[in-house]
């Protein structure tokens, strides 16, 4: 027992917010209690968002809080992440035309107003890029030291005729990643640890609903599962898709697009790029017959030029992700704790 009378297991740790196994466990043990049956995809599905039937369409809703540190980083800022994260979560459920966004902000006493205006400009520009209008918001200020600078929350809603879940894979499906992996996490890490890397490490943070729209237009019903590999990286997304789809996934390491500078930084820190967060990428599961078509559509889009087919689903070993290194094979472990807190 510690001073506050709580055993270590009774306290929230940073790993509980990391997007890995620990976070999933916490949500299952604490928040799943809030789930109630809905006509569609509700809290119980633990998907990127919810989908509720409205007439012959689906209303997709998602919400996300952002605490990224530093708030301005190479390639983006907390404003750009707040819009992109929410727009992308909607897109991962097949809803690529956001109807509205909300924005709630919690500020620390003493926060710089010019910085706040800079973040506002970024929110505005990114929302314009995504075609997503802000419709309401909320502002709170807390005392010095009660919150670190700024916390942003955004909620998004959109209508779609077809919902794509993250559970739709079956054996034989192929998986596409829409571009180079690891950019966001390594840009933040390099900035935070002052790695002094000469290379150009920039976050990939971007709204990718336009890119996903192109993929869905090309693949139609053959696009069966989508996930944005944010916290927990590509490994986290694949583990979730494998578990929910009850398939094994074989990932071919040599086909994973990774920038040289990201790989170099990862090697230096002993980090696997597959565990590093992305903020402008998607992992898309496609029936094999349509994979090339979807790949071509992605590559024709400016945000999908480096898209690659990099994995496939198998019937064996459901729930596992097998890494084919080109030289051998091993299981890819599910990210457990935090690689880096406050990544988004």
């Amino acid at each position, binding site marked *: 027992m510690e001073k506050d009378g709580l055993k270590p297991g009774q306290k929230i740790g940073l790993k509980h917010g990391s997007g890995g196994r620990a976070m999933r466990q916490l949500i299952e043990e604490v928040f799943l209690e809030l789930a109630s049956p809905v006509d569609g995809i509700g809290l119980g599905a633990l998907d990127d968002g919810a989908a509720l039937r409205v007439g012959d369409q689906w209303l997709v809703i998602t919400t996300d809080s952002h605490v990224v540190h530093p708030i301005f980083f190479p390639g983006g800022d907390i404003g750009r992440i707040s819009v992109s994260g929410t727009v992308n979560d909607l897109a991962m459920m097949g809803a690529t035309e956001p109807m509205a966004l909300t924005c709630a902000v919690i500020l620390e006493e003493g926060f710089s107003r010019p910085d706040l205006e800079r973040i506002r400009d970024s929110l505005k520009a990114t929302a314009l890029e995504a075609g997503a209008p802000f419709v309401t918001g909320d502002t709170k200020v807390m005392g010095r030291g009660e919150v670190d600078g700024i916390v942003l929350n955004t909620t998004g809603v959109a209508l779609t005729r077809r919902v794509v879940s993250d559970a739709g894979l079956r054996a034989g499906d192929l998986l596409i990643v829409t571009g180079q992996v690891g950019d966001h996490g390594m840009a933040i890490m390099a900035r935070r640890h002052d790695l002094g890397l000469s*290379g150009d490490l920039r976050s990939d943070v971007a709204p990718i609903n336009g890119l996903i729209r192109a993929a869905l237009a090309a693949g139609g019903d053959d696009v069966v599962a989508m996930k944005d590999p944010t916290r927990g990286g590509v490994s986290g997304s694949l583990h979730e898709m494998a578990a929910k789809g009850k398939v094994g996934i074989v990932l071919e390491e040599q086909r994973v697009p990774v920038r040289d500078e990201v790989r170099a930084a990862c090697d230096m820190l002993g980090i696997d790029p597959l565990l590093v967060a992305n903020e402008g990428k998607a992992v898309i599961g496609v029936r094999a017959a349509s994979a090339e078509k979807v790949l071509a559509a992605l590559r024709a889009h400016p945000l999908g030029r480096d898209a690659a087919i990099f994995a496939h689903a198998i019937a064996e070993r459901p729930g596992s992700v097998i890494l084919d290194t080109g030289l*051998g094979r091993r299981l890819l472990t599910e990210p457990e704790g935090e690689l880096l807190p406050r990544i988004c």
Partner: protein
Amino acid sequence: MAKDLTQELKFRDPAKARALSEAMQRNLDAIGREVSVMHVCGSHEQAIARFGLRAVLPPQLKLIMGPGCPVCVTDGPEVDEAVALAVGGAHVCTYGDMLRLPGTARSLADAQADGGKVHVVYSVAQAVEVATAHPAEQVVFMASGFETTAVATAAVALGPLPPNFSILSVHKYVPAAMEVVSRSKESNIEGFIAAGHAAIITGYALFEPFAARTGAPVVVAGFEPLDILAAIVKLTDLIRERRPEVFNAYPRCVSRDGNLPAQKVLWKVFEPRPGKWRGIAEVPDGNLDLRPEFAHLDARRRLSVDTAGVRDEAAAGLERECICGPIMMGLASPHDCPLFGKACVPEAPVGACMVSSEGTCRIWHTYGGAPDLRRVEGRAAGQG
């Protein structure tokens, strides 16, 4: 950087890996029975696990990691000595992996939490800097590592040093442990992969008397995946042909006689002495102790190291279930341990092999264990 990557890719060519895997299979088919071989190096295990090489080995071939982690084989009573020194008020400097290594009762991390002056250093030179910065206090460098690392310690011992600096040597000598493993009645190891970086110093000729004596061939290997696969092919060649010889599969770095000036430095300062390796046994010539001429630098001779207050020989609780010893002897695998990945994880290690990044358990935990993935289908059909 582009050039480095090209260089690296040369040793990571899947087509070459497949050819080597097929050559191994031919050898094992010719031998016609199960064969176990052992490597003795954490860096080899890291590459084997990282690249999933066990999945391309013939099913009749068992590739086992032996006592290849210097942190893991550092014995509990040796840690007790460092803890006693720290508790007694001396500054204790050591490499990061040693911090959480359990003694019989406590680790240096425990001593640090209780206010002991424990410093993590990256080199022996940094430990000397600590001594220079605290001239009025005793500063002890707990020197761990195999013969390669011992050379660095020896080089510093030969130079000028502040009078308050001393060395607690827990250096270990790998060839001596290979002898113990090969003589163990329970072990059925038929050949060894020797660590390339150690052989850069010692030379590969060192293993010739060993191979002749034990009948087990030795192949010296580098650390890229193809280096390792090629070394295993050669080792199975030698086993098939019943030739207990030494082969240098790392000629771009290793020579027959090794680095003679480094050997001279090593043996000038250290002498091999019998010592207990954690979980294994008393290893004749297994410890590298400071020679009597260096008594003035030897913390054991110079300072009173009384471990009575920090020792507890009766292993408590979970430690009783830990099977690090049999794992390091190559007699068991982490999957045989009831604690592995459950009660024993890197964040809260029970045994030494989960503490160090070079320990078998830690490496297997990081890279998904070693399930049999030989029959899982590889590339998807229709992918160019």
